[in-house]
């Protein structure tokens, strides 16, 4: 079943090596061309800058992380509720589906200032931004998951005398779970960036604030520190959701693992 650690290392090594190589090329070319640090600092300078700002970062990370998590949570709940309504009520589907898609065409950068205007400078507008980003992939994906439920499985359960609640619990919910997580994964990849956009407009704490401050004082090295932290956080959040999906829907990997074994 398990292919062991060797297999894992084999999977992670190539991308890690590529990143290392890119950083090396960056370092060497910046030095060779004598690019000034306020235009593009070398990776080594960014590492130094990271050392300087490290004591400040903790609070910013907590703020942005909280906003992202709360936003995902709210977005997921609303997304699932929308999905169920769209799936169960054809009229609701016809009414809201175009609206749902259209809502995705409004750029968040435009919406964020309005949200600050409506909800103030606190946590709320950021949570709203993240939630708005999360609702769409979760809703669309969950609708697809519900629509793909096998009608014959429902018939089989009915032949056993199952009621609506049994069918919901035994077939519908587990059947749509993988699709829900597929949507949640996408949402989680954008959540941190969404929170940062919210903070960009106005915040008293958070990575977005750290970035705007660094930019205003031309500390490009710190801007890169911020970017790196956002990237790492996003990947970590994605990883957590991925892990959660594997714990909640372990059967998803069953078929694939077997194929890998062959």
């Amino acid at each position, binding site marked *: 079943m398990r292919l062991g650690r060797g297999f894992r290392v084999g999977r992670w090594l190539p991308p890690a090596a590529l990143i290392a190589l890119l950083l090396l090329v960056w370092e060497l070319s910046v030095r060779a061309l004598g690019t000034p640090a306020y235009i593009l600092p070398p990776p080594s300078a960014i590492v130094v800058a990271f050392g300087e700002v490290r004591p400040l970062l903790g609070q910013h990370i907590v703020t942005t992380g909280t906003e992202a998590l709360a936003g995902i949570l709210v977005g997921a709940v609303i997304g699932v509720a929308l999905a169920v309504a769209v799936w169960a009520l054809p009229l609701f589907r016809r009414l809201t589906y175009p609206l749902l898609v259209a809502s995705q065409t409004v750029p968040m950068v435009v919406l964020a200032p309005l949200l600050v205007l409506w909800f103030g400078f606190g946590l709320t507008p950021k949570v709203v931004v993240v939630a708005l980003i999360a609702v769409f992939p979760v809703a669309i994906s969950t609708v697809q998951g519900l629509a793909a439920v096998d009608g014959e*499985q429902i*018939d089989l*359960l*009915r032949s*056993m005398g199952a009621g609506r609640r049994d069918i919901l619990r*035994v077939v519908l919910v587990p059947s749509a779970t993988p699709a829900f997580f597929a949507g949640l994964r996408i949402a989680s990849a954008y959540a941190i960036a969404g929170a940062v956009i919210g903070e960009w407009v106005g915040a008293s704490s958070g990575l977005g604030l750290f970035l705007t401050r660094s930019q205003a004082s031309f500390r490009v090295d710190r801007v890169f520190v911020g970017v790196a932290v956002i990237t790492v956080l996003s990947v970590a959040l994605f990883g957590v959701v991925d892990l959660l999906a594997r714990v909640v829907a372990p*059967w998803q990997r069953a078929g694939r693992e*077997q194929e890998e074994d062959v």
Partner: protein
Amino acid sequence: MIAVERLTHRYGAVEVLDNVSLEIPAGGFVGLVGPSGCGKSTLLKVLAGLLVPDSGDATIDGRSVVGSPGRTAYMPQRDLLLAWRRTLGNATIGAEIAGTPRRQAESQARTLLGRFGLEGFERAWPAELSGGMRQRLALLRTFLCGHDVLLLDEPFGALDAITRRDMHEWLQQVLADDPRTVLLVTHDVEEALVLSDTVIVLSDRPARVVKQLSVELQRPRESDVVTSKPFVELKASLLEALRTGRT
């Protein structure tokens, strides 16, 4: 006892069942053969309580099952295993719906795992099982529903010929240990003859009963029964009936 009385049904303009009547004594095994799409599955769905026919009635021990599911153990053509449940969870689902305590249902399933060739696979996901195992698990689920009447819709249709023959011998043993009343739908004439006490031939759509044939071959019938003289004669008369049923 199962009694189907003058069952008629149409899907829109398509007439599928035309005045079909049949009886299955308790503990009997009846094979229902007919051309593809003739309405065999529709008949099973009526008995499973999933489909209300246009007219006619279907009763089990005198009580109508029309529109009242939960009184038979129905096994559709596809195994329909729930991908998110392991072997044991799939096997006990009927018992779970019927409200049997989980412990009890699981221990009952465990005692039968060996009989159904699933020992050691209690914790496997359906995706990890072979085609034959999936089908046996679907049958185990059907047996564990806790009903006397089994409605089997081409249960071995998706299996290769060799596996299917093994399953025929195996199913006879299982039923010898744990007798049930079985209605088996199939389009495989040999399968029907090997397994059934009585074979009923249906015509092309709309289905009506063309012939009813009792199979008085000694049990257990092993796979070489199909080359014996009485078997070949029965098969010839069944094929003849199928031919006359085609219009």
